[in-house]
């Protein structure tokens, strides 16, 4: 059988349990950095309970996007994705009875994730030093800009602040002539560290399997980005700064973004000598320049290829790239990403039918696994939506007890503002999941 067919078959026929089935996570987090960790754990099959103080909870849900157009049936689209596959409970943890409910959830949990300013959750008895007494097997993750200790630990952070403090903004853009500073768009200062944290968490689970010991993981978003900044090494080895270089990868023999004859942007990167020589066999005027890799020469080579690339269509360049073995790919727009047939085939952009929100295009799982399929099963819910389900099934409370907690304000629900409401037309009496009678997906 053809290799590609063989692999397609094992991915398509993956039938096992998801890899993290049975792992229980309590999320006490807001915005992106914290919540993306449980999002990925839930994609891998973990059971995630997101605890929010009612009625507002995670503030990120209210941020206005695209002039208010970012809301889809009452919830923001990226919030729906970021908080998919989670159970939502609204607990007033500032009250003793609420705090005790959170503690009961923590006693059963394997992983706890928080990303408040250092010291905040300790005030409610939910810091690592407190929760390890309750559950010594707990893997507790604090995610913050700079970590929970050290001289900078008290600085506030958001992605763009973490970018500024880490130095990554100083790696991006142009130098000598164009003096502008660009934030790296779409908040990678949150998404990258949180993606890396998942490996640390699973490693900690593996360690706990051997030893029974939980631990504390103190994730810094700035340090996570610094892990990929070879600039420090360059600087210390040469005594010079590694200059910003726009679209040129300084590690390549030749690279850049070019405009094609049909008006498209295309990235070309000859990373190796062989790739350069192959490109030079097609593009004129760059033979003999290969081994010159100083900034000026990289620019000279870029300009030479620019003139040539502007006479080729995108398709012609892609064909050449395939034939010559040179990395060449288009700069895709959002729409091209969503409509990409390759992504549809892989399930990287997929249409799911959410029980409340109907058919929605969602980004698919981060990796594809041959033994254990990963899935986006349902999208975010407003604050407290799963109160009854979680308190009944996880904590074994009776319905009358849950009603009492609700009446006394220990638990609570959404406020109905844009970003924090069920879809229009939703009715409590018609929703068995809200009433705790059924799970989102019954297995």
């Amino acid at each position, binding site marked *: 059988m053809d290799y590609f067919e063989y692999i397609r078959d094992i991915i398509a026929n993956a039938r096992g*349990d998801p890899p993290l089935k049975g792992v229980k996570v309590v999320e006490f987090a807001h915005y992106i950095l914290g919540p993306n960790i449980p999002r990925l754990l839930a994609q891998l099959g973990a059971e995630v309970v997101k605890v929010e103080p009612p009625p507002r909870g995670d503030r990120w849900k209210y941020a206005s996007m695209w002039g208010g157009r970012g809301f889809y049936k009452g919830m923001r689209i990226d919030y729906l994705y970021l908080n998919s596959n989670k159970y939502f409970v609204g607990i007033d943890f500032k009250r003793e009875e609420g705090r005790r409910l959170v503690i009961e959830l923590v006693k059963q949990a394997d992983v706890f994730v928080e990303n408040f300013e250092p010291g905040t959750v300790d005030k409610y008895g939910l810091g690592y030093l407190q929760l390890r007494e309750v559950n010594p097997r707990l893997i507790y993750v604090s995610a913050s800009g700079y970590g929970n200790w050290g001289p900078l630990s008290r600085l506030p952070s958001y992605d763009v602040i973490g970018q500024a403090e880490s130095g990554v903004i100083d790696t991006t853009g142009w130098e000598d002539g164009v003096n502008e500073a*660009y934030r790296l768009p*779409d908040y990678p200062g949150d998404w990258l560290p949180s993606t890396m944290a998942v490996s640390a968490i699973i*490693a900690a689970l593996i360690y706990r399997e051997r030893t029974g010991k*939980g631990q504390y993981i103190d994730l810094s978003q700035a340090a996570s980005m610094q892990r990929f900044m*070879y600039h420090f090494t360059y600087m210390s080895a040469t005594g010079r700064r590694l200059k910003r270089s726009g679209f040129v990868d300084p590690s390549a023999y030749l690279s850049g*973004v070019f405009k094609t004859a049909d008006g498209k942007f295309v990235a070309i990167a000859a990373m190796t000598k062989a790739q350069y020589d192959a490109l030079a066999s097609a593009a004129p005027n760059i033979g003999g320049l290969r081994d010159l890799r100083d900034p000026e020469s990289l620019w000279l080579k870029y300009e030479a290829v620019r003139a040539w690339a502007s006479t080729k269509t995108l398709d012609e360049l892609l064909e050449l790239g395939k034939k010559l073995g040179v990395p060449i790919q288009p700069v*895709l727009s959002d729409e091209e990403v969503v409509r990409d047939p390759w992504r549809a085939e892989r399930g990287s952009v997929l249409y799911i039918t959410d029980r409340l929100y109907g058919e929605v295009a969602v980004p698919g799982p981060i990796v594809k696994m041959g033994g254990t399929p990963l899935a986006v099963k349902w999208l975010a819910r407003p604050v407290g939506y799963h109160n009854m389900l979680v308190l009944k099934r996880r904590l074994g409370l009776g319905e009358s007890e849950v009603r009492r907690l609700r009446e006394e304000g220990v638990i609570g629900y959404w406020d109905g503002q844009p970003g924090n409401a069920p879809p229009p037309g939703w009715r409590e009496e018609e929703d068995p999941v809200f009433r705790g009678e059924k799970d989102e997906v019954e297995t």
Partner: protein
Amino acid sequence: MSREEALAGLFSGAEAKPSALEGVRVVEICGANYACRIAGSILGELGAEVYTVPDEDAKDITPHGVKIGGVGIPYLIEGRGKREIPLADVPKLLPVDILIDGLGPGKLHSMGLGYPQLSEKYPDLIYVAISQFGHYGEKAKEYANMPDSDLTAQAYNGYMAMLGNPSLPEPYSYPIRAGVWLGWAFAGAAAALGALAAYWARLRTGRGQFVDVAINEVLSVVHPYQVGAPFVLGKSRQRSPTIDANLLVTYTTARAKDGFVALATVIWPEVEAFFEIIGRPDLANRWREALEAWEREPQRLRELEAEVFAEVAKYSGEDLVKASREKGRPPIAVVKTLEYVAAQEHWRIRRAIIQCGDLLVPGTPFMMSETPGRARCPQLPEPTARA
């Protein structure tokens, strides 16, 4: 003892502590694919024993050709703690727990080391494939002989389309790259996560499995905007080097009197606080109105933006930071240079950046109390050679 001291104390004595992945054996066969090497590095920092197949092209990929001890900087950094093994000896090393294949789809298969062959012999093997377009499907086959790169990954993930300033003269107006290997970093992190999820599953099932990572998709499945924006707006977003292209507020960098600052206004009270700091509380209502008219009259936001940035330019960075601290929000920071960051004590004591003789190298982000991530110095084959 304060909370901070107690927490810092949890991380003392790192060298004497065990690693989370002790006993886990990994081999990476990466060629010049650095997403693959980064995946191996993450597992290595978490304590796995990592073998790497050396590659002359990979050694040569380095900023402006700078070599240290005969190898390029990325190779030096991503080679830390790894043992080199020639490709021909890999069969003798087997079985391992995790094999990371970065050569491109079908390459190892044609050498008899593909998943179909190895899984037959070693059913508990975790095989992580990391390539441009994955190891199955028409596109994977079509592009099987085109190598990957970070730049093309940032392009195909739709990331570069949002970065740069379209109003500059050509070609400076073209999409630009994130100045770190963001496409490769995301893909490497995804591969490590997939490998460990499979390892965890294997503790239960006893079986290994195949994990497929496509470098050209990871960034755009983790980031939700490339999919979410066209789904609700029915169109692509446009690059916005000034205000944030999603929030459409001053969540961005800006030029202060003496350098650049980062402004983090996300929710509306932060926007209002910021306008008060620059002495223009009147801007809040106008901004709100311009936001409501954004689709019909996008130029209104651009005009306001210009007004705001003109105000910011009147203040020094430190004054803005000070005012934001006094007010309690929004977070504002001076944009730090690499030189400034490199000298800061904070990153040294947290081992995010470590000093190895004359060299500064990235450490590890895995700050774990029981099983600290390994922040290693590179092994130099010869005394540090200045390039």
